[in-house]
């Protein structure tokens, strides 16, 4: 117990932050405990060695070079670093995944029949707030069943049963989005038709 107390005082003793009473107690402990005394002496020798390290000297032209560099940096329009090199592979992988994902979605869309495609697209984009079953329809409740069931159910429900009061409109030119819906706006007639975007959330 007293050894633990002694060792807890080592750091503060080296920093000369102990009270007179604590110092006297520690010195008394060292008389009776050779292990603690050796431990503290080891610490003190280490710290003396570390403190004796000569200070590094500045290069002769350090000030001039630093001021010149600071001047250059201050006149640069943007010192915010660009994408760091370590993000390059991650960004490339993400871009590749996005391209592959987009291609897969497009391929899946093209491989279905036109009627099916329109149903699937409608299902994919209609995931708005559920406000309850409309008269004459019995869709699955949102909390029960899987996402596929929910989407399938939602596809059969007319859009009027959904509450669009909380819809938020985002404008991401050239794609105009509404919560629960996605519209594509293609400006001009020469715009490539293949760049239609469907965003679901």
């Amino acid at each position, binding site marked *: 117990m007293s050894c633990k107390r002694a060792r807890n005082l080592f750091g503060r003793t080296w920093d000369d932050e102990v009270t007179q009473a604590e110092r006297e107690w520690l010195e008394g402990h060292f008389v009776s405990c050779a292990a603690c005394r050796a431990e503290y002496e080891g610490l003190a020798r280490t710290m003396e060695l570390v403190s004796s390290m000569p200070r*590094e*000297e*500045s290069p002769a032209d350090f*000030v001039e070079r630093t001021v010149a560099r*600071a001047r250059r940096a201050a006149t640069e329009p943007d010192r915010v670093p660009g994408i760091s090199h370590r993000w390059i592979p991650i960004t490339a992988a993400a871009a590749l995944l996005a391209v592959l994902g987009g291609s897969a979605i497009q391929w899946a869309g093209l491989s279905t029949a036109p009627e099916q495609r329109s149903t699937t697209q409608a299902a994919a984009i209609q995931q708005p707030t559920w406000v309850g079953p409309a008269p004459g329809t019995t869709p699955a409740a949102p909390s029960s069943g899987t996402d596929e069931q929910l989407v399938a159910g939602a596809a059969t429900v007319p859009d009027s049963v959904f509450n669009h009061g909380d819809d938020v409109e985002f404008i991401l030119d050239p794609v105009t989005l509404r919560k629960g819906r996605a519209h594509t706006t293609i400006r001009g007639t020469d715009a490539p038709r293949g760049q239609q975007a469907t965003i679901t959330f």
Partner: protein
Amino acid sequence: MGRVAEGDERAFTELVRRFQGRVINLVSRVLNDREVSDDLAQEVFVRVYVHRRNYRRGSKFSTWLFTIAANLAKNEIRRRVRRRNWFSLDALQEMVNDSAIQLADPKEGQDVELQRAQLKQAIGKAIAAVPEKYRIALVLRDLEGFPYEEIGEMLKIPGGTVRSRINRARGILKRKLQPLLRKEGL
């Protein structure tokens, strides 16, 4: 610093002149790499100049300056650790070196300067072997002599945490330097 904030280049030059030694010393002790330290110390002052308008008047300039220095040193250590993990052979070599911190056998008539340089190198290596979060606190306290409260402000940690980190760093350093102390009969 008030004049620097207003864009006074002469005041900035004076500021660099006044603090260059301490900043270079801090960075080079934390990194144990003199060549990189000069460049990093320059970057510390560049950041001070570029972000001079962010300096809060009334706060202690040295705290702000050494916060920037500690952060840049920390980033550099982390960058090196990532690189070292990548090149595992380097890591292995460093581990071998770290586990054998001791002086080469002094030959008869060996230059005292050489021994001193070896001693300095061994201590530098021992400090560099202390884990980063303890090392920066240790250098700020035991080599730069900052009070615990100020170190806490620089590292954005409570004073008690600063104390425990420094105590731990001292213990690690003592273990690392034990063979050297025995050999030197210190």
